[in-house]
C-alpha cells in the first residue's frame, strides 16, 4: 500500500461540514489539514452553463455516481433489502462542496424544544401516550448553547430573513414561534412570488402568522466576516439540483474555498475515496483511501474527522469496526440507530386563472407558517405528537418536470391529445399551497447496518437502511392536509382560484419509498448523546471510544426536525471545532 506523509488532521469529505471544520482549524491553528473528497474538484466556473434540466434536473449530474455505490432499503426486519438502483428518494452530491453545492438554501434553525424532544414529548403527552417503539432522544446540549454558532453560520452564508423573536421580544413579520435570536438576520427576506403572496394573505386572514423563510440565497449583495463578497440572487429558477451560476446561493465552493485556498496549511485532494479509518487501542491512526488511479493509499494523521454524507459516516464506522453496531431486537449498541428522514406532504393545489410565472424563483424562497410546528396548534385528539412547518415555495416550475400537472377528471389517460391539451392549459397555472415538512420521530425499528449481499465498486458492503412509515406519520399527513385545505379554500375565495386536490393519501405516503424524490434530509446513525451507551459521539461530536476521531454532520442528529438540517449541521461543526481547538489540543483525550 502506498503511504503518504503524515498530516495533523485528515478530513474525509469536502462538503459544508468538512470544509467548515477545515476553515476553523486553518484559521486558528498551525495544524496541517488535508481534506479527502471522493468526487471531482468543482469550481464556481463549472456552473456558468449548468442551467439544463435534462443533465442536472433529470440525470442528476451533480450526484454521486450511483453505479459505484448506493444504499439498500427494506421496510422491516423480515424483508430482504433491495438496492436503490436509480436515484429517487435522496440525492447525495459529490465533488468539492458535496451536497452543499446543489442544495436549495433553506437555512433555518431548530426550535428550542427540538433539543430536548424526548423530555418535551413526555411532558406534553405523558409517557403512556407515546408509542412503545419511539426512540427519540434529547440532544446533549440546549438551543441556547448553539445560538452563538447559528449566528456565526448565518453571517458566513449571508442568510436572509426577518427575526420573529429578537432576544425574547416577539417581532411582527417574523416567525413568532422561533427560539430567541441574538441578532437580526444579516440580510432582508426574499421577494415574494404570486403563490407566496396568496398563501401569506390567506393564512393571515385565518389568524396564522406567515413569515418569509430564512434562506442562504443572497437577497442583497453581501460581504461576510471573512471578506467574501457575493452578488444578489436573480431568481433564475435553477437552484435545487444545480450549482449557482452567479454565486448568490451560498455553497462551500463560493463561501469557504476562497478562504481555504489562501491557507498554506490546507490541502485538498479530490477523487480520493476514503474506505476505512485505521485505529489501534482506541486511537485513530489515519485513513485508507483509493486515489484517482484506483490505488490504495494510507494517509496517517494525528486527528481524523469523518465529514462524509450522513449515511456514509455510519457506514465508514461500521466498515472500520469502530463502536458497537445497533441491534434493533435487543436495543444494544448505538452505531446505526435512530435513522430518520422527513415527513413531507399534505399540500393542497390551486388552479389559477392568471399565469404564475412559476419559472421565476429562488431556492429557499418561500412563505411559511409555524402555527402547527412542534406542539403548536395540535389538537389533543388528533393522535399527532409533533407537527411541522407549512410552506408555499417560489414556483419550482420546470418545463419537463412540471408538464402534466392537471386537475383530476381533465383526461382519462396520461398521454394523447386530451391529456396534452390539459397539460398545456394548466402548465403555469397550478400552485401547490402549504406543503408540510414535519418532524420524523425516531423509532427503534428504523436503523442502518451493513447489507449482507450488495457491495460497492470496491467490493465493500453497502449500507442497508431499514425504515417504514408508522401510523403516526399517516396521522401527521392527514392533519397537514386538513390545515392546507383550509388555507387553500381561503386563498381561492379572494383570488378566484379553484381548489383541485390534496396530497392527502396515496400508496406512496403509506409505505416508505425510494423511487421518487422526497428530500435529502436524512439524519442519525452516529448520534450525539449523554453516554456511550445511548450514542456514538458526545456533545462535541467526538467519538466516545476514540478521542482523536470526530464524526460531524447530520449523522449526529438524534432525530429529524421539521427545519432543514444544513444550518444546524454547520453550527454543530463550529461548536465542535471550538472544543477541538480550545480544549482537546491543549489536553488531548476524551472531553468530559
Amino acid at each position, binding site marked *: 500500500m502506498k503511504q503518504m506523509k503524515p498530516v495533523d488532521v485528515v478530513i474525509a469529505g469536502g462538503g459544508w461540514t468538512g470544509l467548515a471544520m477545515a476553515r476553523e482549524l486553518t484559521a486558528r491553528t498551525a495544524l496541517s489539514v488535508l481534506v479527502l473528497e471522493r468526487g471531482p474538484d468543482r469550481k464556481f466556473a463549472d456552473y*456558468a*452553463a449548468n*442551467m*439544463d*434540466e*435534462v*443533465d442536472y434536473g*433529470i*440525470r442528476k*449530474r451533480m450526484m454521486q*455516481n*450511483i*453505479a459505484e455505490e*448506493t444504499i439498500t*432499503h427494506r*421496510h422491516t426486519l423480515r424483508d430482504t433489502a*433491495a*438496492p*436503490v*438502483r*436509480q436515484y*429517487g428518494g435522496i440525492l447525495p452530491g459529490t465533488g468539492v462542496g458535496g451536497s452543499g453545492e446543489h442544495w436549495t438554501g433553506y437555512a433555518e434553525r431548530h426550535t428550542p424544544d427540538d433539543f430536548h424532544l424526548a423530555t418535551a414529548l413526555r411532558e406534553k403527552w405523558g409517557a403512556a401516550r407515546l408509542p412503545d417503539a419511539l426512540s427519540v432522544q434529547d440532544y446533549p446540549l440546549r438551543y441556547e448553547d448553539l445560538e452563538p454558532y447559528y449566528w456565526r453560520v448565518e453571517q458566513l452564508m449571508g442568510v436572509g430573513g426577518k427575526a420573529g423573536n429578537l432576544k425574547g421580544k416577539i417581532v411582527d413579520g417574523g416567525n413568532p414561534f422561533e427560539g430567541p435570536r441574538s441578532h437580526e438576520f444579516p440580510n432582508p427576506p426574499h*421577494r415574494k412570488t*404570486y403563490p407566496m*403572496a396568496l398563501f401569506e394573505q390567506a393564512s393571515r386572514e385565518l389568524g396564522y402568522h406567515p413569515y418569509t423563510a430564512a434562506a442562504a440565497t443572497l437577497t442583497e449583495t453581501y460581504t461576510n466576516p471573512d471578506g467574501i463578497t457575493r452578488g444578489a440572487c*436573480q*431568481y*433564475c429558477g*435553477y437552484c435545487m439540483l444545480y450549482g449557482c*451560476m*452567479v454565486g448568490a446561493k451560498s455553497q462551500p465552493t463560493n463561501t469557504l474555498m476562497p478562504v481555504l485556498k489562501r491557507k498554506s496549511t490546507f490541502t485538498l485532494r479530490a477523487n480520493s475515496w476514503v474506505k476505512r479509518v485505521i485505529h489501534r487501542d482506541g486511537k485513530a491512526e489515519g485513513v485508507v483511501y483509493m486515489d484517482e488511479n484506483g490505488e490504495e493509499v494510507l494517509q496517517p494523521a494525528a486527528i481524523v474527522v469523518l465529514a462524509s454524507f450522513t449515511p456514509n459516516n455510519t457506514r465508514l464506522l461500521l466498515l472500520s469496526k469502530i463502536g458497537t453496531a445497533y441491534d434493533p431486537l435487543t436495543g444494544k449498541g448505538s452505531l446505526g440507530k435512530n435513522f430518520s428522514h422527513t415527513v413531507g406532504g399534505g399540500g393542497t393545489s390551486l388552479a389559477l386563472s*392568471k*399565469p*404564475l*410565472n412559476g*419559472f*421565476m424563483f429562488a431556492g429557499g424562497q418561500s412563505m411559511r407558517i409555524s402555527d402547527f410546528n412542534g406542539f403548536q396548534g395540535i389538537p389533543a385528539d388528533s393522535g399527532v405528537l409533533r407537527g411541522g412547518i407549512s410552506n408555499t415555495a417560489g414556483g419550482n416550475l420546470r*418545463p*419537463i418536470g412540471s*408538464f*402534466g400537472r392537471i386537475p383530476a377528471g381533465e383526461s382519462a389517460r*396520461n*398521454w*394523447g*391529445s386530451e391529456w*396534452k*391539451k390539459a397539460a*398545456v*392549459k394548466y402548465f*403555469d397555472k397550478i400552485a401547490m399551497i402549504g406543503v408540510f415538512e414535519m418532524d420524523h420521530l425516531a423509532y427503534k425499528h428504523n436503523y442502518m447496518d451493513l447489507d449482507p*449481499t*450488495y*457491495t460497492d465498486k470496491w467490493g465493500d458492503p453497502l449500507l442497508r437502511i431499514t425504515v417504514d412509515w408508522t401510523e403516526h406519520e399517516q396521522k401527521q399527513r392527514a392533519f397537514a392536509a386538513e390545515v392546507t385545505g383550509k388555507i387553500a379554500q381561503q386563498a381561492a375565495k379572494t383570488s378566484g382560484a379553484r381548489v383541485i386536490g390534496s396530497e392527502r393519501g396515496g*400508496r*406512496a405516503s403509506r*409505505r*416508505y*419509498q*425510494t*423511487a421518487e424524490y422526497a428530500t435529502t434530509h436524512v439524519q442519525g446513525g452516529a448520534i450525539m448523546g449523554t453516554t456511550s451507551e445511548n450514542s456514538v459521539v458526545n456533545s462535541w461530536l467526538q467519538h466516545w471510544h476514540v478521542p482523536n476521531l470526530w464524526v460531524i454532520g447530520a449523522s449526529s442528529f438524534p432525530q429529524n426536525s421539521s427545519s432543514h438540517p444544513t444550518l444546524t449541521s454547520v453550527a454543530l461543526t463550529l461548536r465542535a471545532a471550538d472544543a477541538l481547538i480550545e480544549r482537546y489540543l491543549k489536553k488531548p483525550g476524551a472531553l468530559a
Partner: protein
Amino acid sequence: MRRREFLTLPAKGVGGLLIYTLAGEPVRVNAQEGSLKIPLKFFTEHEARTVMAASERILPADESGPGATEANVVVYIDRQLAGPYGRDKFRYTKAPWIESVPEHGYQGKETPRELYRAGVVRLGQDFAQLAASEQDKRLMEIEKTYFFQMLRTHTIEGFLCDPLHGGNAGMIGWQMIGFPGPLMGYREEVEKHGVPFQRKPKSLSQVYGRPVKGWEEEPA
C-alpha cells in the same frame, strides 16, 4: 461496426415559429424547405420511425400546438440511448437481481437500450404505417409496461428539453408552454404577480454565448 443509419424527414415538418391567431390557436410558420437527413446513433431507421410514430401518439400535433414529430423527439431519444444513460452507466447494476416491492422502483436488469429494442418489436413491424386509432390500441395494450412509461417520459423530455439535446427543435415545445428558456434572472419581474411574461425563448447556448454539450456526448 454498425451500418450507418439515417432518418430523412421533410424539414418543414420540424421546428418553426409559433404564432397565435386571435382565437388563441397556435399556427406554425417559418419552417424550412427541403429535407433533413439525420444520422442515427442508436436506432435503425425502422426503429426510429416506430418510436417517432409512438411518441407522436403520446404528444400529438393538434389544436393545442405541434407534437412530438415537429419537436424532433426521436432524435433526443436516439442520442440519450447512444450515450452513457442508454447503457446504464449511471445506474447500480450489480447482481443479484431480485423482484421487489413497487416502492423500490425499476429493479430490472435490462438497460434502456434493451428495453427499447424489445419494446419496438412488441409494437409491431407495421406500427408506423397504422392509422392513429390502431396505434393507440397497441399502445394501450402496453400502457402498464415499464417500456411504455419510459417512452412517455422520454417523449416529454424530448419535447421540452434544451435544444442542445436534439429535441425541442426550434424551441417549439417551449413556445407552446410559454417557457422563456434559462434566462439569467427575473429580479425585477418576480413580484409582478399574474402579469404574463412573454418572450421568444432562448436556449442555453444562446444565453451562455457559446455551444454547450450534453452529458450524452461526453466520453464515458
